[in-house]
């Protein structure tokens, strides 16, 4: 599943067609996700609501989602065409100092194997810019979670894979994308490879500040977290929401990447 053997110098000038066998097959490949209902991990409890709010299933409209996270080779094509997103050019407003730190140069990856690894050390601004250049967006948190929920298929196995991933020490390198099993929608690497940006990553970081200062809503304040969760046993879900709440848009990390979403096919 590793990528082609095209020289890195050539890659700098390459178009998607020259991405190599694996990337050629899947670069920008998207699947249609049908509309449906899902139960968000976090209840939305209006700040001035009285009493408990029932956990409601939420409708999610049809959309398209990348089958796999965006790879280094794919992102290299983007920064080649858009110099302002190169490591040496990016403004600190848009990414912190770890941006693309695993690359060796502005237009040079560490080695061949890096081509098929998911691009990480990517800020929200950079991820959004990449998706916009493809006429796409980052998925909303609802879209991403709905895609992971996979209409309930293999829920236990997916949770187990998440937990196993949390427990595993990080490798020095990330595996290539596409090596994990596809879920029912045909999506790969939703868990077990990297964390992923969402369009509205900050949406659930608001509760502590925005709830009625005089209110008694304990959901998602310390010790109240479980009270605000639709399924308190969903530890991986709690982890994902906590992780997103800790992010800032310029933040980059070794295990934080993204995939893009689009409108209904």
């Amino acid at each position, binding site marked *: 599943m590793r990528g082609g053997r095209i020289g890195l110098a050539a890659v700098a000038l390459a178009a998607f067609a020259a991405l190599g066998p694996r990337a050629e097959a899947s670069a920008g490949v998207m699947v249609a996700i049908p509309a449906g209902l899902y139960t968000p991990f976090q209840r939305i409890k209006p700040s001035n609501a009285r009493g408990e709010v029932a956990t409601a299933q939420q409708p999610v409209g049809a959309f398209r989602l990348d089958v796999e996270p965006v790879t280094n080779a794919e992102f290299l094509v983007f920064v080649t065409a858009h110099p302002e997103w190169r490591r040496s050019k990016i403004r600190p407003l848009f990414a912190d100092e770890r941006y693309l730190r695993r690359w060796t140069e502005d237009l040079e990856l560490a080695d061949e194997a890096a081509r098929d690894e998911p691009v990480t050390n990517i800020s929200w601004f950079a991820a959004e810019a990449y998706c916009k250049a493809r006429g796409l967006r980052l998925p909303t948190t609802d879209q991403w979670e709905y895609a992971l929920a996979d209409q309930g298929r293999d829920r236990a196995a997916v949770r187990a894979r998440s937990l196993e991933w949390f427990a595993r020490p990080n490798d020095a390198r990330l595996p290539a994308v596409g090596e994990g099993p596809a879920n029912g929608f045909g999506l790969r690497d939703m868990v077990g490879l990297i*964390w992923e940006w969402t369009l509205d990553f900050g*949406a659930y970081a608001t509760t502590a500040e925005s709830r009625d200062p005089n209110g008694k809503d304990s959901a998602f304040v310390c010790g109240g977290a479980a009270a605000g969760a639709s399924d308190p046993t969903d530890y991986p879900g709690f982890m994902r929401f*906590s992780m997103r709440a800790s992010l800032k*848009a310029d933040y980059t990390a070794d295990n934080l990447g993204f995939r893009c979403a689009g409108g209904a096919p």
Partner: protein
Amino acid sequence: MIRRFFAVATLLGACALGPSFAHDHMHHDAHLDEQAQHTDRSIYNLDSNWTTEDGATVSLDSLGGQPVVVAMGYTTCKDICPAIVADMMWVEKHLPAGAAGRVKFAFFSIDSAVDTPAKLKAYADEHGFDPQIWTLFHGDEDAVRELAAALGVGYRADGRGGFDHAAVISLLNSKGEILYQQRGVKASSEELLNKLKELL
């Protein structure tokens, strides 16, 4: 390491430090480039367009040239926004004599659908905002999302036609760099006021 860092830090952070504990890059020492039109950390690098309450189409750097006190909210908000606006008005009221013309106050609506320029104008009139000092801004969803990201203002639709959003008041210097942020509604905004005074 990062994966475990998240695992530990987010759990600790949720309890010990609050949701904005991590990665406070906004406050790194800025290496100011005095020559640059927009410094590297200026939010005026965002190239979004906005419409003011008077119907003028402007970019963010229309606020450049003096310190600006900035917040995001929406006019039909009943819970947190009045408190945010009250804090901003408190700061305005306590400005030193003669400073009134040298500071601007900016309110950006996160409700692209409802808060038309006319609605913003009515809101401004209702609050008696001096149009020489206050500007209210309407933008499309993309503009709002991008500015909110740059200012670190989390928000989401609350499912009842409103939004839950973070209470954040940012102080920008004349170049559009974030110098200070008040997070959460305070009993007094004295710290924000003092930081602002330092700029005058």
